[in-house]
């Protein structure tokens, strides 16, 4: 290793810089496909076993440290949740009565609700690259039916993002806060476009361009029925501050419900539903469902 008799470092440096620039240009232009995409898949495949072992060792320690740090906050949260539970139980009692009434009305009208069961694949988060990259890797890939474009939700059913790439035994998930593609969402009765804010880990920006009305802080933002990329009614976040439209358009910040940095496990949804996609003539990637790893009806 120390055998460089002459110092060729400057020409080597310049050559490597040129090569890096060429790779970046090619990768940006090919949008991650082709040979460079294959190289990515290969690198992920090689490192996956190491990541799985490291996660197995690190996760319990990280959880322990995290729980110690959050002890005081957890106590306060526990109290708040107890109070919330009491309120919800009271509300549930009223809903039970309404559900019974709904059943009767449906029976009378012979209606059947069109509930769509979405197959989902649970997956563990096994790695993140560095402080600059919000994407993360999960331990399920093509063999589990996970394909690029599949929506990803957390354990609470909140929208995380979508699968960016999928390979054998792994997939890369891009959170909505870091996604270059906007999501179509609904707030109240308004439909808008929700996109990430560069440089922010937890905030998004909502644009409503047509016939916009005012929104209030705390109003929930959910995926829209008009969205092709995500199933409808998945909670995404809440409005940060009251806002009124300027002209006919409204732009407002949204705080995402999901803390991307603390995710340990996620659910990957098989969406668009292959059957629905065929009937609606929506192009869908080929999926392979592995019954042992899929559950139904979760998320969103």
């Amino acid at each position, binding site marked *: *290793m*120390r*055998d*460089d008799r002459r*110092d*060729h*470092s400057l020409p*080597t*440096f310049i050559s*490597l*810089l040129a*090569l*890096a*620039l*060429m*790779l*970046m240009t*090619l*990768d*940006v232009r090919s949008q*991650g496909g082709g040979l*460079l995409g294959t*190289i*990515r898949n*290969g*690198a*992920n495949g090689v*490192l996956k076993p*190491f*990541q799985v072992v*490291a*996660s197995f060792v*690190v*996760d319990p320690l*990280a959880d322990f*440290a995290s729980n110690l740090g959050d002890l005081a906050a957890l106590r306060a949260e526990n109290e708040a949740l107890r109070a919330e539970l009491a309120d919800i139980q009271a509300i549930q009692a009223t809903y039970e009565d309404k559900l019974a009434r709904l059943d009767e009305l449906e029976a009378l009208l012979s209606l059947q609700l069109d509930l769509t069961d979405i197959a989902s694949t649970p997956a563990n*988060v*096994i*790695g*993140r*690259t*560095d*402080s*600059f*990259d919000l*994407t*993360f*890797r999960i331990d399920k890939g093509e063999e589990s039916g996970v394909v690029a474009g599949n929506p990803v939700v957390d354990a609470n059913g909140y929208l995380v993002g979508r699968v*960016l*790439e999928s390979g054998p035994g792994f997939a*890369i998930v*891009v959170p909505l806060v*870091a996604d270059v593609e906007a999501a179509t969402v609904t707030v109240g009765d308004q439909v808008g476009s929700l996109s990430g804010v*560069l*440089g*922010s*880990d937890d905030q998004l920006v909502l644009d409503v361009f047509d016939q916009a009305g005012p929104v209030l802080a705390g109003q929930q933002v959910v995926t829209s029925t008009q969205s092709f990329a995500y199933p409808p009614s998945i909670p995404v976040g809440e409005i940060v501050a009251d806002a009124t439209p300027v002209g006919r358009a409204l732009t407002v910040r949204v705080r995402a419900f999901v803390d991307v*940095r603390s995710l340990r496990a996620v659910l990957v949804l098989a969406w668009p539903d292959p059957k629905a996609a065929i009937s609606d003539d929506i192009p869908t990637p080929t999926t392979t469902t592995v019954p042992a790893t899929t559950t139904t009806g979760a998320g969103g």
Partner: protein
Amino acid sequence: MRSRQAIVITLILLVAVTVQVSVFGRFRVGSIAPDLVLIALVLTSFRMGPSTALITAFGCGLALDALSSEALGLRAMTYTAVMFAAVRTKERANAGPVATAFWIAALTLGGVLLLGLVGTLFGQLQFSGGQMLARIVVIPLLNLAIGLVLVPAIARIQAPSRRFR
């Protein structure tokens, strides 16, 4: 002997990459993690020739690029540039382990700035906002802290040793 040294360096870098993407995926200050791969590269540069060190840095950067969603070559370029600065200035860092730790922090600062700048030019990152400023400040400080903790190891690597040769 030479092949043994190459194996040791490869293992160090492999462990650094694995720890970076797994351990520091969970243990972070706020949402910011240190750059362990850069520390490992800079330290192992003491035992490599300049060209070998540059190619190794390029390879490590490329591996991290492949594991990220950003353009392939972004970190390869950054690490190569940092390593070039490292091989040109490593004699000055021989003043002692503490000086080496500060040298690592300075190289990290240069690396973070370059990564932000090149990433912004290629539309991969945003070189503005509080989060970027936090990264520019915190990552070098974290690397400085890790460098100071690794003082004995640094001294051992810097000192001529039959085992590591």
